[in-house]
């Protein structure tokens, strides 16, 4: 294990140190005193685990392909931008536009997230991304979703857990929301239904990993019902244009 003190270090120098450590074959890296440094784990590959103490800056794990990043506090915007594989665990809250265009890997967030989380996620038979949010989400959750799995748990209260325009433009993938979903808050392309046995199996599997990462009890999380949101049409805009 190697510890890197990030205090007052410019992001380019910090990320170079991280890359050098990974190239040396380091499997476990702890970044101490991080505050606001951008691009940590950006484009990083390999089987390495990075623990971040402090609030990392924007675009963490962008294009990342493999590593596991654990953030012990809150995190900022644009995490997991177009990420390909690997995992980011955030023990606190996180900001806007998380997992934009994400292609694979996992984002596990314990707290609340901001606007436009999990938008334009991809997925195919080989791989698909998963984002699980423990708290609440802002508007446009899962906008343009084309694949993958989005789960919103709302573990911390009874208030509304999703924002407006949920899944607007969705044409693939699945969203699970713990509790009820107001159809008024959903995009026109979204169908709200009860999950079946297979769905619950998928959910249970995803959530047991999430719970293991964040020290939660799976039974507690599964104690409340879920709603499943899927696109009702693969071509929601089929009639928009005149040929």
């Amino acid at each position: 294990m190697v510890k890197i003190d990030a205090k007052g270090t410019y992001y380019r120098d910090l990320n170079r140190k991280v890359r050098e450590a990974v190239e040396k074959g380091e499997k476990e890296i702890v970044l101490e005193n991080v505050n606001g440094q951008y691009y940590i784990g950006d484009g990083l590959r390999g089987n390495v685990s990075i623990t971040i103490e402090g609030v990392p800056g924007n675009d963490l794990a962008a294009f990342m392909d493999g590593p596991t990043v654990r953030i012990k506090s809150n995190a900022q915007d644009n995490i997991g931008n177009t990420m390909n594989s690997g995992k980011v665990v955030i023990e606190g809250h996180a900001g806007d536009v998380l997992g934009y265009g994400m292609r694979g890997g996992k984002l596990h967030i314990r707290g609340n997230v901001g606007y436009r989380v999990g938008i334009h996620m991809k997925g195919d038979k080989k791989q698909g991304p998963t984002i699980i949010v423990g708290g609440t989400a802002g508007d446009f959750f899962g906008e343009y979703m084309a694949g993958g799995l989005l789960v919103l748990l709302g573990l911390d209260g009874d208030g509304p857990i999703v924002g407006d325009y949920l899944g607007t433009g969705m044409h693939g993938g699945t969203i699970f929301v713990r509790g009820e979903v107001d159809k008024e808050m959903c995009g026109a392309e979204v169908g709200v239904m009860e999950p079946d046995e297979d769905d619950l199996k998928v959910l249970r599997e995803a959530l047991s990993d999430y719970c293991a990462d964040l020290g939660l009890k799976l039974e507690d999380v599964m104690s409340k019902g879920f709603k499943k949101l899927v696109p009702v049409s693969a071509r929601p805009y089929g009639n928009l244009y005149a040929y």
Partner: protein
Amino acid sequence: MFRSLAPPEYLATIDRVKCIRCKRCIQNCGWGVYSWGGDKILIDTFKCVKCLRCYHYCPEEAIEIKDNPTRFKQNAYWGYHNIRNIKRQAETGGIPLTGMGSDLPYTILFDNLLIDACQVTNPSIDPLREPMELRTYLGKKPSSVKIEKGKDGKLKLAEPAPPQIKLEVPIIFSPMSYGSISLNAQKVLATAAKECGIVMNTGEGGLHEDLIPYRKNIIVQVASGRFGVNPEYLNAGVAVEIKIGQGAKPGIGGHLPGEKIPLEVAKTRMIPVGTDALSPAPQHDIYSIEDLRQLIYAIKEATDYKPVSVKIAAVHNVAAIASGIVRAGADIVYLDGFRGGTGAAPSIIRDHLGIPIEHALAAVDDRLRQEGIRNEASIIAAGGIRSSADAAKAIALGADAVAIGTAALITMGCTTCGKCYTGNCSWGITTQRPELTARLDPEVYAERLINLIHAWTHELKEILGALGINSIESLRGNRERLRGVGLDSFTLDILGVKPAGR
């Protein structure tokens, strides 16, 4: 009952005497105009787009495609396109789509600019027998260079130079994605780019594995749909382009219809088969200029600092925007003008938003010079480059290179019919139907595109020779060698060009 109150645009006709009923027209038409009636070819002329595939493949020259004389009454104000669109909208309630660049008769500034030539006071140069250099490098140029003497006494760079893209001629192929065009069409572009020492651009549809051998001649694009973007992709080409906008549809997103998303395209884009591929209007991680910088540097961090290009549509404030892009760290600014092509755009957007490339280019080049940062990035001008003369004029206005899309497709058989969005292209270019794409033999058609680039190369050399200069950098931004004809003083001022005679 009538079928549509919009009469067919074209009348496909067969000379029944000449017709030998070989049915080649039926096989060749991607639009379903022709069918077999048992004893003769039947014609559904509503479907005809005048792509001329049938005409070229009719062994008897029996086919003629005419503009429909029964079209709406001519009206100087209510144009054909106005009436047709209203009728189509009344029938469908939809937004009329179109392909290609705008064909409306706005002033074409390129056609009002003329290039200088040498007479008496300075000599023109014989480009066929004397050196004539078109080589161009795209990328950030330092404002000065530190050179020191090494231990061996030879000169060497004291600091590493920024990365560059080397072009043998200042022409590149504009971004056209796999999905909007066929894989074979992309292969034509890639083969020609490799042969000519220039680059093609993946557009935003990801990189099909068949193109990997051409990686040294490929720019990969990252756009709002993030299709096919992974670390390998980012590192697959010589540079990464962030697409903000497109001249044909500034400010609106892309929408590749489900008809053009078969398995291979879906796989490359990582979306379900047959869904519409949505490219949101904005990139949702870029809502402001500092966000653009954030993405530029995210890509640079992920690619060990490859050059990053930013493509924008030419819009009113383009100069300030371009300046911001350069200050945000872009190595290349790609300006796509109002006339720029598209595979699919609402015609109302294509025909009414944005500004022409000539104005935009002049304004951007001026602004970057005023701010002392013109060296910080290269400028690519695109959006309606029809000939090497347009290219030379764009370079004289300040471009480092031009990008061509439509011109390249025309070498593959495109007749600018403008129906790319249907996915029925009979030439196998803007379609994914296997029986149509199979027609576009990459080797055969690459030869034609290579010919075009070679021909333009020769023409550019002729122009430089006439100007008495033997290197393209002496034309770049050299507006003194342009004159305007029939342009008002405002326009001349914007272009920084004198009127002819002065």
